[in-house]
């Protein structure tokens, strides 16, 4: 649960409210999407929720705890329950690390599996995200972008999180791979009741995978509700603009330059 979250940046003597009095809740097993144009505060909210940055005002309650009051040890322990997948997994990993190393780290750091047990757990994680266990010794930079994002998801679920922040996690993928990754995320959600904070600029994808959506404009909530209701009939100006701007593929009518 997030309440009255505010984060300001100072730029050139001016104070900008990157996130301005934003409140929301995410239920277990639910996908809440944050959508909006560039600069609307989507990624700042993601970083606040992950406590990668601290808010200027407001509170975050996570699994019954005051998340902002947690000391470093308690925060580290709690972080196992709160994971993240970003747009560019190559930037999120040490490119020279092997797949096995990337998946072994969270198991070791969070004390989830003993040294003897970890190789088996790594193999199981790879299989869980639809990859062959043979991939384990490969270097991160050697595998394809889609495989890399699957590894990022495997790393995120290694610590049994209840919430994963997905910040444009499928935006850079080829469309054929994107569908598979979305299916994987939905499958994991159904099996493990993981909640997603799904950040995307793509309303088509949001509509397809999210339960609820918050449309952001200049750091404030412009509109929120059931994802399909909001996107099918937006009420806010920014909602209408986002829907109008989404490219449409009309497969029955002939198209061309008007």
């Amino acid at each position, binding site marked *: 649960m997030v309440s009255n979250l505010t984060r300001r940046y100072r730029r050139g003597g001016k104070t900008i409210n990157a996130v301005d009095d934003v409140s929301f809740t995410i239920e277990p097993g639910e996908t809440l999407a944050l959508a909006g*144009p560039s600069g609307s505060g989507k990624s700042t909210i993601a970083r606040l929720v992950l406590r990668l940055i601290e808010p200027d005002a407001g509170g975050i309650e996570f699994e019954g705890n005051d998340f902002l009051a947690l000391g470093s040890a308690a925060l580290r322990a709690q972080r196992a329950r709160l994971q993240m997948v970003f747009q560019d997994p190559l930037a999120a990993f040490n490119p020279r690390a092997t797949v096995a190393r990337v998946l072994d780290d969270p198991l070791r750091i969070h004390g989830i599996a003993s040294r003897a047990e970890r190789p088996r757990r790594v193999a199981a994680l790879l299989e869980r995200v639809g990859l062959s266990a043979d991939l384990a010794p490969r270097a991160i930079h050697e595998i394809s972008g889609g495989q890399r994002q699957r590894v990022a998801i495997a790393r995120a679920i290694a610590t049994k999180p209840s919430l994963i922040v997905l910040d444009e996690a499928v935006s850079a993928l080829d469309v054929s791979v994107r569908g598979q990754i979305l299916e994987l995320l939905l499958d994991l959600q159904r099996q493990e009741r993981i909640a997603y904070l799904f950040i995307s600029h793509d*309303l088509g994808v949001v509509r397809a*995978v999210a339960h609820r959506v918050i449309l952001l404009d200049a750091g404030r909530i412009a509109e929120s509700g059931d994802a399909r209701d909001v996107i099918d009939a937006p009420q806010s100006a920014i909602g209408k603009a986002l829907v109008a701007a989404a*490219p449409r593929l009309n497969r029955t009518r002939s198209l061309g330059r008007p």
Partner: protein
Amino acid sequence: MTVLASIRDLTVTYRRDGSEVAALKGISLDIMVGDCLAIIGESGSGKSTLALAIAGLLPASARIKGSVAWSWLSSGAEAPPSVLPDISPARGEIAPSSALSPITYIAEGEPSEKQPISPLAGEMSGRTEGGVTERQPFKSEPSKIPLGGRDIGFIFQDPSASLDPVMPIGKQIAEVARTHLGLSWPQAYAKAKTLLERVRLPDPDSALHAFPHQLSGGQKQRAVIAAAIAAGPKLLIADEATSALDTIVQAEIVALIRRLVTEDGMTLLFISHDIALAAELAERIAVFRHGQLVELGTTAQIVGAPTQAYTRALLDAHIGLDAEPLLNQAGLHA
């Protein structure tokens, strides 16, 4: 319709880690005058290599076979300047090493070590290491070879990589006009201001003196477009020109490109991974995969009646606002 550029059996091979990787395999394609042609494909399809090949911006290490033959300058277009002005470094255009533009390829091309490599070529793309392909002075007359920046305008994905960060926007646009149209600086600046108005940059007067970092991503892309059309190119190449922009700005930039192409009678080559976006803009679509041309047709035919399974797969993978929610398929809806 008149053929603008005729691509025949174009094969481009990159050397990578000692092995040869074919980025394009025997592509034959005609670009017509006034065409609004989209090149669609996923990563590694060769779509950007095709753009760079047409623009003559392939890195020197690329091995090129086949030909790109141009017919535009023979069809009543104005003659190029007899003497090219010197081109000072650091703005988005190619500096040719001579009056001949390195665009047409030798049928059985050899790597172009013998060619003096311009350190500036490829700068516009921000992603090739530069260098130009070999030229073929004996196959085409010089007047029939297009010149990047003058005859071909480029818009790439990252406007920050196309613009000089320490030069005012107005100067970067004026330089193109001065270089290719032979204008004086005051004339070129007046032209730059008109161009900034045409691309609907707010407050063109102050934008002339603004540096790229003072503009937003969408505004920077507008400035790049102004520079790209400054010399009145016949062909405008947009390579993922809107992919880094949010949806609203993307729609604005697409509308801008559409309007400018119509107003100036340009031919458009629109390269994108997004088949829906391409379908909104293009009259014809060429689908690429693994360096090969899978299917070419009118937009209506490609979207409405594709003949190739891969084209259908691409269309099916599109998640539009009317798509069946994946959530319901997974039985998850709360």
